[in-house]
């Protein structure tokens, strides 16, 4: 592997093998060959986005060093082309809708929109300015985020994309997340736009709480919310949305969800982790089909990843950077994540996370009224159940992933995840004996080092 000290470079010797791999097929039917992806990732992107190639262990978003995993390169290609693709799609008439992470995006696409969660809008915004090194990129994003804090509230846990929409230059057409999905701040964040500088479409998909999956009327209510959502997006995309559109979209997204579940089973069953943590996370998350702003593209990469992982497991190939007998961690909570690379250096590996998994692991029934079926699925997301229900599901995931420890992370100012942290961890520990640790993180970055130190100490304790 040819990594020099400060700048990541894909080694030329893998090129012949890589360019033989599959194309990425996009939603509009267009495709890109592996050879063109190679060209972009080795020639174009390093010039346009130098920060992305920073090979610094402290940089949690650095490119995975597992260069022999084609899906990893393709995932990064999709992330680095987020601006090119999203800006083009919008110019071609697809409305861009801002959503919450960890939710299904089937209805947004069924109505002809593109759903982007906070991290995806972040990737889109990063792509708008070219030539920045990591320091410059970080300053840019801190600056815009600070403006959002001032505009919303200094006590906000995270600004959830507000900065890009109100203070930045992203032409988002509508802010329309599912609410209460994991937190109350998302709702207040949507509301904050009503006095923002820029007038923008606002919409609430209400996600009613409290034993919601057992209540007929909760499903009916959410289904009506979803109907309104597709109608509103349809008005922008110029599409009369039919039930069949949603049905077809659900089928497509179920493919992603099922494939991610299958991939996870294989990954978890392996004697040694077949990828590093960063690649695992991206691959599992592709099943939600919202990672790249193009569900079809995510699906083609996920299919390829599934095959590659099965191959690796068959040959007991270990992921790049993973130590022998790495301690397996499962991460709970929301909106903050440890640095995978440094966790691996410390002798651990993150094998799963509940956020961005609870929705993916919920398959939507494909027969019957699609709105109602989707509503029922959404209301049964384990992450949003009463704490005892969430704990039960988490325990199941811990067992399946053969985790040695459970880390629960939340941001400073996160009122909802923080409120449940203690109880969730207590139940998990009582029922499984698995050690748990709660870490609170200061979003502004000063505490990142402290967070990682605590993760590393936890790994040591597990040893």
């Amino acid at each position, binding site marked *: 592997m040819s990594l020099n000290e400060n700048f990541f470079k894909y080694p030329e010797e893998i090129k012949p093998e890589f360019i033989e791999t599959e194309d990425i097929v996009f939603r509009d039917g267009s495709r890109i060959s592996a050879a063109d992806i190679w060209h972009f990732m080795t020639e174009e992107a390093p010039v346009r986005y130098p920060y992305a190639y920073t090979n610094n262990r402290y940089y949690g978003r650095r490119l995975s060093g597992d260069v022999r995993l084609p899906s990893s390169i393709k995932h990064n290609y999709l992330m680095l082309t987020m601006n090119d693709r999203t800006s083009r799609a919008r110019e071609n008439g697809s409305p861009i809708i801002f959503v919450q992470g960890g939710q299904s995006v089937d209805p947004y696409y069924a109505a002809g929109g593109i759903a982007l969660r906070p991290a995806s809008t972040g990737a889109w915004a990063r792509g708008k300015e070219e030539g920045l090194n990591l320091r410059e990129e970080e300053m840019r994003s801190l600056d815009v985020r600070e403006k959002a804090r001032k*505009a*919303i*509230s200094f*006590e*906000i846990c995270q600004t959830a994309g507000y900065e890009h929409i109100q203070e930045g230059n992203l032409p988002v057409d509508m802010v329309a997340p599912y*609410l*209460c999905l994991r*937190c*109350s*701040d998302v*709702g*207040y964040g*949507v*509301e*904050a736009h*009503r*006095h923002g500088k820029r007038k923008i479409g*606002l*919409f*609430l998909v*209400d996600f*009613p*709480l*409290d*034993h*919601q999956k057992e*209540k007929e*009327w*909760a499903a*009916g*209510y959410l289904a*009506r*919310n979803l109907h309104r959502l597709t109608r509103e997006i349809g008005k922008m995309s110029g599409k009369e949305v039919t039930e069949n559109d949603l049905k077809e979209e659900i089928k497509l997204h179920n493919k992603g969800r099922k494939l991610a579940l299958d991939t996870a089973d294989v990954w978890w069953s392996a004697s040694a982790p077949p990828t590093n943590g960063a690649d695992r996370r991206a691959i599992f998350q592709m099943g939600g089909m919202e990672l790249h702003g193009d569900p079809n593209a995510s699906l083609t990469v996920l299919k390829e990843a599934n095959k590659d992982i099965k191959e690796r497991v068959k040959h007991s190939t270990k992921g790049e950077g993973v130590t022998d007998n790495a301690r397996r961690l499962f991460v709970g909570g929301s909106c903050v994540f440890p640095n995978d690379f440094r966790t691996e250096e410390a002798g651990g590996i993150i094998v799963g996370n509940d956020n961005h998994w609870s929705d993916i692991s919920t398959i939507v029934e494909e027969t019957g009224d699609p709105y109602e079926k989707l509503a029922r699925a959404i209301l049964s997301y384990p992450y949003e159940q*009463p*704490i*005892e229900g969430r704990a039960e599901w988490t325990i199941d995931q811990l067992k399946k992933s053969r985790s040695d420890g459970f880390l629960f992370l*939340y941001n*400073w*100012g*996160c*009122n*909802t995840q*923080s*409120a*449940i*942290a*203690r*109880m969730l961890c207590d*139940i998990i520990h009582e029922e499984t004996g698995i050690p748990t640790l709660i870490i*609170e993180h200061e979003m502004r970055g000063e505490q990142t080092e402290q967070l990682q130190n605590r993760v590393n100490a936890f790994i040591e304790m597990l040893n």
Partner: protein
Amino acid sequence: MTLETLEKINNAVKERPQELADARRKGRKVVGWFNYNIPEEIIHALGLIPVRLGTGGNDRLVEIGARYISTKNCVFTRELVGLFAENQDPYIKNSDIVAADATCLQTYRAAEVIKHYFKINIVILGVPRNFSLPEGQEYFEKELEFFTKKLEAVAGKKLDTNKLAGSIKLYNDIRKSIKELYKYQAISKSTIKWREVFDVVHAGFYLDREKYLSLLHELLGELREQHGEPVIGNLNGDARILVSGSIIPPGDTKLINIIEQVGGRIVSDELWSGLNPSMNIEIREASIKGIADGYINRVPHAALPYLDLETDGRLKNLKRIINDHKAQGVIFHTLRFCDPFTFKASETKDVLKKEGIPLLEIHTEYAGSDLEAIRTRAEAFVEMIKNKEIQEVEQ
């Protein structure tokens, strides 16, 4: 001039825990509730005794509560959990069942925590975020039906329409009387202060509701005798302050004391532990639907997002109370980690600025470390209002 009824109310509150214990011995059941949207009418109509739970201002309880919930929850929520953990509060000790609604999600989560750690029987009422849409209102009605069924099981009887009609009338009268009391405290040279009215409202969290209404009538009778009909006219050189924002529950006197000490006169509040629950609620029929519609269409709590600034009922209500009580400035109280109100502080300030009403945000919690800083800011604010008034009078 003193008001004898205030003394009576004070004594009644002192006797209430014992009364509740006696009532329970005779087989009556007590429903303690918290959060912001529990319709007491239903509890009352079922023959159950409602008490509103939650206190403030006690850092020790906050610390105890934080062991079970987190330090990133507002102090009111933490103290609530602390109260259950300690189990000394007479109203908590006397609650047979606890009810909570899902308006503020922090208290909703607190309900789960309380249920788990302290084995308390809790019944939850779901609250829609899309409360102004027909589907949201239908959802709330269904939730209220479900909630009522659970309470019927506790009461061992079905909800009776006639009884419900009686309870609705009782609560309408209570709300009307409270609004009337607020008028009296806002007149010049009033014999009752806002702070006393605020305490009277809190007495209503605990007292037998029929008895409470008769005490309210008695108090209003006294006031009528002393002042005639309340006319809020002459501003009288006071710095007339309205307090809005996060809940100020019984026991939390920190900010109120400071405002009074620096010479501000509180003439009203827009608080969910004060006037707000009495505002803008109209129950048109004695049925679950009638109650659901009445509650969901009243002033929305800040925890329920609303997307159109111009038609926001919360802001309309705030402006109306300012106007009705001739307030000259707003002190907007935000508890740390109370996002429902903290997120809205600067927006509310901008909105009121257009009306010529200054707003001072005081962001605090129960600990005393920021007392002096708050005092300085409140003092400057009160001075500014007084100076403004002098200038206006001179002009």
